[in-house]
């Protein structure tokens, strides 16, 4: 837990959410292995990281609400519903594929 290495992961946005992320669906990221308090990086930290460093759209509230992912946005950790993985407390592992899918956009 002492290393400063970054965790390589891929992050994907779909269901209309990519609009908030410069219309780019897939990102390969190096996430700092520890969060602000030195705890292992979890999904909550990833979400903050995305908001601060990746998202250029000012409408942060369309992605984050009350400190967590906005209701109506599904999070899949290696294809599994994040609710099966501990939600935002899930500690990000090397090579993880984390996907955010909006259900809010109509057709």
């Amino acid at each position, binding site marked *: 837990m002492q290393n400063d290495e970054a965790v390589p992961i891929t992050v994907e946005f779909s269901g209309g959410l990519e609009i908030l992320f410069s219309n780019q669906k897939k990102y390969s990221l190096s996430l700092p292995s520890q969060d602000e308090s030195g705890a292992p990086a979890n999904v909550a930290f990833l979400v903050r990281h995305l908001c601060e460093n990746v998202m250029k759209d000012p409408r942060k509230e369309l992605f984050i609400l009350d400190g967590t992912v906005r209701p109506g946005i599904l999070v899949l950790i290696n294809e599994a519903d994040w609710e*099966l993985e501990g939600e935002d407390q899930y500690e990000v592992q090397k090579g993880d594929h984390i996907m955010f899918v909006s259900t809010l956009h*109509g*057709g």
Partner: protein
Amino acid sequence: MPPSPCALCKVNRALILRPKDHSKLCKTCFITVFETEIHHTIIANALFHRGEKIAIGASGGKDSTVLASVLKTLNERYDYGLDLILLSIDEGIKGYRDDSLETVKRNAEQYGMELTILGYEELYGWTMDQVVAQVGKKGNCTYCGVFRRQALDRGASRLEVKHVVTGHNADDVAETVLMNLLRGDLPRLSRTTSIITSTPSASANPSSNTNIKRSKPLKYAYEKEIVLYAHHKNLDYFSTECIYSPEAFRGSARALIKNLERVRPSAILDVVRSGEDMAKLVPGSDEGCGGVCSSSVPAAEEEEGGCGSAQGRSSGGEMASVEAQLRQNDAASEHNLETEITTAGGNGSGKQHGRHDSGAAPLSTAGKKGKKGFTPRKANKQVMGRCKKCGYLSSQDVCKACVLLEGLNKARPKNSIEVAYEVQDVSVNSIKDELKKTSIGAD
């Protein structure tokens, strides 16, 4: 957390947590269960009959794409014997609908279904881009919604299809239930909770474009599971918000639904079921008569507010009908709803009342016989006639679409100086003239 195995096959890793019962399923089992549940919905409600030609209202979005995929699968798996085709409405919104229609075209190829695209311009002489240029962005969803509902019926009629299915899901229905509760709109609450809405079978002209049955096979399917189904089956769908109603979900009943789901996922289906139960108490409703008179519940063109994803916001035209609705609601509460509640305790469930309209006199919820001076039918706005201008089924002399069109066409000449409109003015004016003629004739 160690990965949990699938609750059904016990072999594969669970990837899905079902919102309705918290069961953990693997991808394969989830897809099977999702399809099977829709099959049960179809069978339990007798939505289809063998040999029926069905038009799937296809927008290219997740719901209609999943609907088309599931119906194709089930039609083959259970040998429904259905002839499935796709019907798309082109509202004429550049950068939105033209893109989503490309998705529908791909879907048509992928599913081997015939596709018909019908445009607002062709039907009404106005694209939504032109409507917005005229009325502005506020309230334009009302036009779009009114036009679209008629357009689906007209398209179906052209294709000689008697049944249109739409991709409305449980979240949509729950949202509508909440919206109609908040508005106090009982007749609409009743109509929108029905899985089937149909125009009167006794329609004067059997080939009329109003005699179309509508149903929502995904009524009990969670939006979350629809998105997961599309994801895990790699379905090709389009997901960009309409440019004229961006962020329609903010601060809406939709957001409330999603927040409820976060706290307690079963809340969505609970709201849907509650809506159905409340609908039974609405006089003259489909549910109120125990489904016996379902064939006579008209799907009026004013079924819902704006567009599916934008219902949460108030749309401009709404206020027009509020007064009439209030009257109906008053009648409803005076003559039926209150009576129903007070007597229900002694007599068992509302469903039973529906079957015994000869029973306790106050229980005219059943609606059909109407022993009192005023029948509950009267309280309901479903006194259907025909639009004097276009012949479309309408509770008013002139249907909503024609009223909106008249307004648009009246205002149009003001803009005729603008170069951009020159070309269109020809057609618009001729339509206007036609409308004038018709209205004179009608009067």
